[in-house]
């Protein structure tokens, strides 16, 4: 038996419940990322944040972007970040002071930005259709490889350059060079 659009006996839509839950997860895990002391836990919270965003993309009718989100953000970027964390956490790096002295100013600035965005967004009348439209993957592929093929190619050059440069900068020094360091 198919379930209806709304929770039985109420006017609350399932979508809304899902949205609220995922939104709470996004904001909550996001806050954890920026506030927790242990940086490894921050990394894990970031993965949770990315995952709940992927859920929201599905809710927005865009499973392709959701899949990419999981593959690239969780599969690649998060893992990279976790490795970097493990490589740079030494015992002499104090974990007590995670925040700058200016944390209160940062909080005020962030609140101001959030308020600005919310006010501007709600004050704007968007040409919204009022409902989520699912994205047609075939059409997506067509636009990607027709009108947007140049940015696509440019991104691939960008990734190449980033990998070459990243390897150059992060690779371990040759033994001889390591020795003559002061």
């Amino acid at each position, binding site marked *: 038996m198919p379930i209806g659009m709304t929770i039985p006996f109420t006017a609350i839509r399932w979508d809304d419940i899902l*949205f609220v839950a995922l939104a709470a997860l996004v904001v909550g895990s996001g806050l954890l990322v*920026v506030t927790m002391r242990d940086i490894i836990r921050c990394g894990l919270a970031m993965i949770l944040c990315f995952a709940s965003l992927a859920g929201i993309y599905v809710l927005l009718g*865009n499973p392709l972007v959701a899949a990419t989100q999981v593959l690239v953000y969780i599969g690649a970027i998060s893992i990279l970040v976790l490795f970097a964390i493990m*490589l740079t956490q030494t015992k002499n790096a104090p974990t007590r002071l995670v925040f700058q002295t200016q944390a209160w100013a940062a909080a005020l600035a962030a609140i101001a*930005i*959030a308020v600005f*965005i919310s006010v501007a967004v709600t004050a704007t009348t968007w040409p919204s259709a009022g409902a989520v439209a699912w994205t047609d993957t075939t059409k997506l592929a067509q636009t990607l490889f027709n009108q947007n093929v140049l940015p696509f190619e440019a991104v691939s050059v960008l990734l190449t350059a980033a990998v070459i*440069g990243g390897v150059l*900068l992060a690779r371990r020094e040759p033994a001889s060079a390591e020795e003559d360091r002061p």
Partner: protein
Amino acid sequence: MSSSLDSYLVLSGLLFAIGTFGFLARRNAISMLMSIELMLNAVNLTIVAFGAFIPTLNVQASVIALMVIAVAAAEATVGLAIVMAIYRNKKTPLVDEYDAMKD
């Protein structure tokens, strides 16, 4: 609620602000990097939400979102490489201790 563009945009605004806070307040370079990732994700949410609700932007939104994810990956690669390099020099990941150059 889930069928209103505003709620998604406000959500993305909140995430953007959270990322901004993290970037401004955290001391660890990698924490700052993670905060930037949150901000980029907020932008992506904005883009996908526009695409879902505004019919003329529907297809374009996915293209842009995919590109942004790729750019974020490239940025993370470079950023982590730089973090590794400076960690070798200064033996600390705390960015506020990198202040040899100032004034």
